[in-house]
């Protein structure tokens, strides 16, 4: 993603293109990133497509408000994440509303219904467990995991799209990974003090 800003500027400065064509060129450049980020945040293809396309539509509508055209992606990312987080909030509210007294006593599902395990390529038990654990992270922690591990963004790039400094990115990533580790520990049924999936031995000794 390092050359993205420059390429966006080139697309915009091309006088042979109409504004719509210039925006289309930028949208085509970023559509896969937008889709995969949305997929990581909301967990299924249908919603990810819908939300990422809606984000491009809103970006197109408000494109004249973007002062520095070279900074398209961080600006667009804010629209996309707000849409995804808002969608997740609505989904939670709908789900809470639909729970009647009979359902209230049931145990919490292993994985949120909307997170489709079929979205994982070359599935196996370990990958399913990791995806399951990611789906159970809270939004801000899931976001940094997706940006770092699935989008391969550097800390510098993450700090730009999240509008924070690198220290905040590092710290958020630390807590996200720590939480992910706890969830995986919990899933595998190995409390942290015992021999777990991390190659730990009782008493905290390394293997």
């Amino acid at each position, binding site marked *: 993603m390092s050359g993205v800003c420059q390429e966006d500027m080139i697309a915009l400065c091309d006088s042979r293109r109409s504004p719509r064509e210039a925006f289309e060129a930028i949208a085509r450049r970023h559509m896969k990133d937008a889709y995969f980020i949305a997929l990581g945040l909301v967990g299924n293809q249908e919603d990810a497509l819908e939300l990422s396309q809606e984000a491009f539509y809103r970006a197109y509508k408000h494109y004249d408000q973007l002062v520095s055209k070279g900074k398209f992606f961080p600006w667009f990312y804010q629209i996309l994440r707000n849409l995804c987080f808002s969608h997740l909030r609505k989904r939670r509210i709908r789900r809470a509303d639909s729970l009647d007294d009979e359902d209230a006593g049931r145990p919490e599902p292993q994985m949120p219904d909307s997170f489709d395990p079929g979205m*994982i390529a070359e599935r196996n038990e370990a990958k399913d467990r990791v995806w399951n654990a990611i789906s159970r992270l809270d939004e801000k922690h899931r976001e940094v995991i997706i940006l770092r591990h699935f989008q391969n963004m550097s800390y510098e790039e993450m700090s730009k799209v999240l509008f924070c400094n690198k220290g905040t990115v*590092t710290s958020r990533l630390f807590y996200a990974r720590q939480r992910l580790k706890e969830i995986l520990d919990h899933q595998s049924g190995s409390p942290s003090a015992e021999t777990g999936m991390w*190659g730990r031995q009782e008493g905290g000794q390394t293997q």
Partner: protein
Amino acid sequence: MTCQDHKDLMMAYLDDELNQEQRRTFEEHLASCPDCTRELKEFRKLKQMTDCVAFVEPEDRIWDQYWNNVYNRVERCTGWVLFSVAAIALFVYGGFKLIESVIQDPTVGLLMKIGLLALLGGLVILFVSVLRERVYFWTKDRYKDVRR
């Protein structure tokens, strides 16, 4: 520096984001701290596991249709705006003409005329009230001031 101070360095070390000096400092700390060494090993394994997970690439037709779907939204929005404005204008004009003809009609009773004017006044008040509410929420739109 305490172990807590090294936690942030640990993430950057794991992701190869440290400069040489920071890397050396952290490795010196690791050599003397079994707890951080163990924690780093756990995080490294977690990173390996997470890096192995990849999303399914959608079919090509999804990408082929992607921009068209975005553009369709833009087009439909323009269509709806034009349709709504024209419909409102025609409705208001038609309503005005209808009321005008009723008011000027000498065969229509005074009570009927007053009732019609009261109905019209109520509609105007309702419209202004809803419009004011809409404007208020629009100015508070969360996407309006998205940072750029």
